């Protein structure tokens, strides 16, 4: 109740600031890495990497595997709607990787988020990106994500570029029918699974070496009904997870929903904290500190039959065991890192949790888990080969 403001609503700042202060005092390793609350809340990728979108930049990406040349031909490839602020596969990651895998090709990528026309960039094999004024007349292939093909079809100039171009491949459609238009090839949800990106990987590397895994169940994601955190708390057996600290991290989108979670946690006498929206790099450190990451989301509420959440790949990259609702798409390659449960079945969650609570090391051993077995570079290569292999003569 102390978190309520005068109008009776949850006071987000009060709740989250107290949550972060609490985990700082409880986990000194984290406090040593993140000296101030402001740094945790302000060090966002868009601010950190804003220069990428406004100026020519030479990126210092630390690849862990040699990038094989997929084609020596002079191709023109467009990546539509990839964020210039993040180094993840769906951001700078794939275009920069492609620029090296296709060293003689022209690689363009766009950032198509706003009402105005997209920002267009070029990526070079030297690892540089810069803003350019417009598209080429046509591309040998277009790799797109989200609803960008629909957006492009509604703009005369962009439509012409698409009409003149070779195959269009939609690698991420979030299982939304409205996005599944105008492409020649659509990836399935389990075909495309972004993993921990190089920037976050470098940032968390030191923490993974220094931190000991703590008894933490981390629930990352926006706090609203789609993520079904409340169902998780209602179903979980408080005796089973005694001694574990439940940490909710993500924006408080539905404060009424958050209030219900708080009431339920209090009723069950759980040990919990809310941290609000935090820097992606801080989140990686939280993953590094946590034994278990719970992803109870049910995207059916917003019309998606399934979905692969990016946090799954990031959590695995930070050596967490993941407990996922059946509605979460778990690609076969990642199944050994995850336990899936049907949240409609009574006690299914607790049955699964009982296999891993207080048994982190045993689970890792029994399941034959080798951390970093599959990494960012693998998914970049797989995506390019899957997307372009049927249309272009690739060396793989």
């Amino acid at each position, binding site marked *: 109740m102390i978190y309520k403001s005068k109008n009776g609503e949850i006071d987000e700042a009060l709740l989250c600031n107290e949550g972060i202060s609490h985990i700082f005092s409880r986990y000194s390793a984290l406090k040593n890495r993140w000296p101030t609350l402001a740094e945790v809340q302000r060090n966002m990728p868009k601010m950190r990497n804003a220069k990428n979108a406004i100026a020519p930049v030479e990126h210092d990406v630390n690849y862990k595997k040699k990038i094989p040349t997929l084609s020596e031909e002079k191709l023109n490839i467009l990546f539509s709607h990839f964020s210039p602020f993040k180094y993840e596969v769906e951001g700078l990651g794939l275009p920069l990787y492609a620029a090296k895998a296709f060293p003689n090709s022209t690689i363009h990528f766009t950032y198509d988020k706003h009402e105005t026309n997209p*920002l267009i960039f070029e990526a070079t094999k030297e690892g540089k990106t810069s803003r350019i004024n417009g598209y080429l007349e046509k591309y040998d292939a277009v790799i797109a994500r989200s609803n960008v093909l629909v957006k492009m079809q509604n703009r005369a100039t962009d439509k012409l570029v698409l009409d003149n171009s070779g195959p269009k491949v939609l690698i991420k459609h979030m299982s939304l029918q409205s996005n599944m238009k105008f492409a020649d090839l659509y990836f399935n949800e389990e075909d495309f699974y972004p993993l921990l990106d190089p920037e976050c990987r470098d940032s968390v590397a030191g923490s993974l070496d220094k931190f000991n895994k703590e008894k933490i169940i981390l629930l990352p994601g926006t706090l609203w009904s789609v993520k079904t955190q409340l169902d998780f708390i209602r179903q979980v057996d408080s005796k089973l997870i005694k001694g574990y600290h439940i940490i909710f991290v993500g924006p408080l989108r539905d404060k009424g929903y958050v209030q219900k979670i708080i009431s339920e946690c209090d009723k069950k006498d759980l040990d919990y904290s809310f941290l609000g929206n935090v820097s992606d790099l801080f989140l990686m450190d939280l993953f590094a500190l946590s034994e278990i990451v719970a992803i109870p989301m049910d995207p059916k509420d917003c019309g998606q039959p399934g979905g692969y959440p990016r946090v799954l790949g990031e959590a695995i990259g930070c050596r967490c065991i993941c407990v996922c609702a059946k509605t979460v798409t778990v690609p076969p390659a990642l199944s050994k890192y995850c336990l899936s449960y049907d949240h409609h079945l009574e006690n299914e969650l607790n049955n699964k949790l009982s296999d891993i609570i207080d048994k982190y090391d045993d689970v890792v051993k029994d399941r034959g888990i080798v951390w970093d077995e599959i990494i960012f570079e693998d998914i970049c290569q797989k995506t390019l080969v899957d997307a372009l292999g049927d249309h272009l003569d690739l060396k793989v």
Partner: protein
Amino acid sequence: MVLVADVELTLSNDFTYLLFIGAGRTGSSAVGQMLNAHPNICVSNETRHVRKCIENDLEICDTIDIVIQAAINDLCTGVEKYSISDSQSLSRRKKIQRGGVDMGSHFESAGLKKELIQYVGDKKQGGNSRVFFEHPYIFMEKFANVRWRPISIVRRPSQIMLSSFNCIPDAKLRDPHDTKSLKLLDEICKKFMSEMVASFAICELSNNPLILCYEDLMNDSYGFARNIEESLKLKHNDKWCNLVSNTTTKFEDRIPTNKQLNVLVSNPGFESFYQRLKKYGIVDEYVEKYIKEFPR
């Protein structure tokens, strides 16, 4: 005078934000108003749009209508008579804001009309530069989602110094022999040099900064306008180039004393600052002469 207030403006989906950067007292207000009279450009005068976006966490694109509305108001009313923030008297404003006067009438009599708006900006050269060095990361974040192009009007430093000096309201302090005035002059130099250095940094972030020299405007105003058209890839508009040519007031140089020049060139960092300025085509003969006479 009602000019274009009733005209519906269409903003291009591809519009570019003209980010004015540099120092004050470089003729930027006059150039801003000349640009505002172009059919495809809207430039407001000192709405402090960039600072407001940064300090209130607003997006440049979401608030662009405010800039356009202010630009139209400026064209209708004339910036020499109207300013959102200026508390100075009309006569004083007229004295310090001598260029770009009554642009609305010139716009109308030249037979110009607003067309598809391809460029939008707010003329606040020194202010925008200061925001950059106060909040560099937020500044970049705000421009990361925007098509933008830096525009900077540069001028010989001795003339910026004396023009700023002339704006000091207290007449006694404008006496070049007064000791206090030299101290004030030193502050003026530090201010415009730091603003210009920040603007160099912003120009280096961009692929294609638009650098305009005040002296070019004075020497060949029609050619100055043609250069803007070509740099901004706008089709040639003879009426507008003539408007620029006809509304440019030629001012005589202010002659600096040796004491004043000494304040300027003694400033730490002046040499590297001046070298960078030279790269943009600015050579200050008063500074050159002084350095030759009194080598450092």
